[in-house]
């Protein structure tokens, strides 16, 4: 194994291949606080990419109700249990990554889901409310009742476990944008990647005999457009772009600003060691003890920052760019109470007011002597 640097862990770590960062890295920020689990993202992906035979069960994008929703079943719990308790020393990870904890004969610490584990996406999503409203809660939980929606795609990791695990190097990171893809002409369907990916975002297709995964809609991304699950999100929780390493972070890059400058968006299970590139604004109503395990030691800072985002003109403005355009917005600036999204050359792509004007319409129209319904 080679030694590579993982900035999310604050240290070097072991990886199957030497460090070779792409020229640019696809990345995204998901604001979990805005997600309503409508699954429009899931359908957008499904209809675009996985409507074929053998892809029926595949959800390259899914939204699960944490803590008890999973796809596949118990994907994170199984691995956390297998990895065992690990510790952080401040911002530095003192535990073992999946590569460092690999068992004898393996490249990665993983587990293999069975078909039934995919049979009930998001099982348990309604448990907090009970099966019927009049019956009340169906399950008694060992903690106060809370839940949040976790939207998930492939994390297009800097150190993908799927890529490391493939014995014939059928998986690669595109050098131009870091998107992780499975070469469909080379894959022989050994399913090592299905076992190795901790996020369980590679899927075996029984009709083609190969494994398939999220491709970050690269045909769109190449044209400067955000993926389907981003632009169809009615909650506007998603923002796609490119991320720099911390030492090269630019304040005018929206992803860099949210991840590196404000540190309000955090990687999912950074302790696994993959340096995942989808970053989450944590749900601010959920107990921190749970979220710390999921998002790492910078959780408190992110939670506090987001809670006070309304008092931070720049941060509040930047969140208004989410879902504002289909285009990828690599640069941004705030001009008074307007946020402007720009291309690499600084040309304006989109302009959004930070606060929409408010109009109050009286319910009773005295001039016409009628009560209005809620129509324009």
């Amino acid at each position, binding site marked *: 194994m080679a030694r590579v640097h993982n900035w999310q862990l604050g240290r070097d770590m072991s990886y199957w291949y030497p460090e070779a960062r792409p020229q640019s890295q696809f990345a995204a920020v998901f604001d979990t606080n805005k997600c309503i689990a409508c699954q429009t993202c899931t359908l957008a992906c499904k209809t675009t990419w996985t409507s074929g035979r053998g892809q029926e069960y595949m959800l390259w994008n899914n939204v699960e109700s944490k803590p008890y929703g999973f796809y596949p079943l118990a994907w994170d719990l199984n691995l956390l249990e297998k990895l065992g308790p690990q510790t952080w020393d401040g911002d530095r990870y003192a535990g073992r990554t999946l590569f460092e904890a690999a068992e004898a004969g*393996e490249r990665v610490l993983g587990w293999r*889901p069975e078909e039934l584990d995919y049979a009930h996406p998001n099982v348990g999503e309604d448990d907090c409310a009970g099966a019927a409203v009049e019956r009340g809660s169906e399950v008694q939980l060992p903690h106060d009742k809370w839940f949040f929606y976790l939207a998930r795609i492939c994390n297009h990791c800097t150190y993908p476990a799927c890529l490391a695990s493939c014995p014939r190097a059928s998986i690669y990171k595109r050098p131009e944008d870091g998107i992780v893809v499975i070469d469909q*002409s080379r894959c022989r369907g050994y*399913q*090592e990647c299905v076992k190795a990916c901790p996020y369980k975002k590679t899927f075996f297709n029984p009709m083609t005999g190969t494994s398939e995964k999220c491709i970050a809609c690269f045909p769109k991304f190449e044209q400067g457009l955000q993926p389907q699950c981003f632009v169809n999100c009615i909650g506007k929780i998603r923002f796609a772009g490119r991320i720099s390493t911390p030492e090269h972070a630019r304040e005018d890059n929206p992803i860099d600003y949210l991840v590196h400058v404000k540190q309000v968006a955090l990687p999912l299970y950074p302790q696994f060691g993959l340096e995942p590139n989808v970053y989450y604004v944590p749900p601010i109503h959920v107990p921190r003890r749970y979220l710390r395990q999921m998002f790492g030691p910078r959780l408190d800072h992110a939670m506090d920052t987001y809670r006070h985002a309304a008092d931070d003109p720049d941060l509040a403005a930047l969140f208004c760019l989410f879902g504002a355009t289909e285009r990828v917005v690599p640069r941004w600036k705030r001009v008074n109470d307007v946020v402007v999204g720009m291309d690499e050359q600084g040309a304006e792509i989109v302009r959004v007011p930070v606060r929409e004007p408010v109009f109050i319409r009286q319910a009773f129209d005295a001039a016409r002597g009628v009560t209005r319904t809620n129509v324009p």
Partner: protein
Amino acid sequence: MHRLAVLDLALALAAGGGAPPPPASEVVAVRRATLPTAPDDAAWRDVPAFAAPLVPQDMVEPRLLEPSTREVAVRTITDGTRVALRLEWIDETRDDLPGTGRFSDACAVQLPARVEADVPAPQMGETGRPVEVSYWRAAWQAVVDGRPDTLQAIEPAAAPDHYPFDAPPLAPGSPEQQAMAQRYAPARALGNPMSGPRAQPVQDLVAEGPGTLRPADHGRSEGRGVRTAHGWTVVVVRPLPEGLRPGQRGQVAFAVWDGAHQEAGARKMRSAWVPLLVEDAR
């Protein structure tokens, strides 16, 4: 030897009685005018079996740590240009359905691409010194034997309600319809030979070391496998390795995958190189 005796007895009974020939100390390609292609062909009856011991592939990750199939009984017949290899092994479970976490039973024959005094590394060859592999898979055999290329054939309970490429106004079988269907089957669209449906249960491959396996330029192997009471019997017919003449010795190696043991790719039971004597014409 106990297992081999069982296999020999089974073969003898299937062939209609008669004492089997004594076990061989190497793989001997017996010279015959014609090559049998069926595993139960009577021609196999008087061909001596070599019991090739199998060990777990534990040299490169991912490794197989727990042994499964201990040996494979090999019988070989040649007509001077082609060679038929009959592999027989015990596997109590039939695994020929693809699926998540499901793996197919399979076997493979490996030969050096060139006959030289010094053989390439037994594990998939080495750079500049390729090996040729004839790979048989039970899941492919099932399709060749008539299992439909449909989802319901492998997932009987599946009831998909809609495929966009099967919906009007696309006419079934029209070029437009097929082109759209391929868009949702990328491996098939790219002609990946793994992606089926296949006309042959055997695939020709070339390798120059672990992880380098690739389809051969030309498919030259044929084969057929049948499920027996306690395992599989597979016949692979392919050309003799280039430069291996009747009367000479070459090398051959074998591998067996047990699907129930989640074996695929590098996780396999394999043999070392075994001497292969090609009998001269009588």
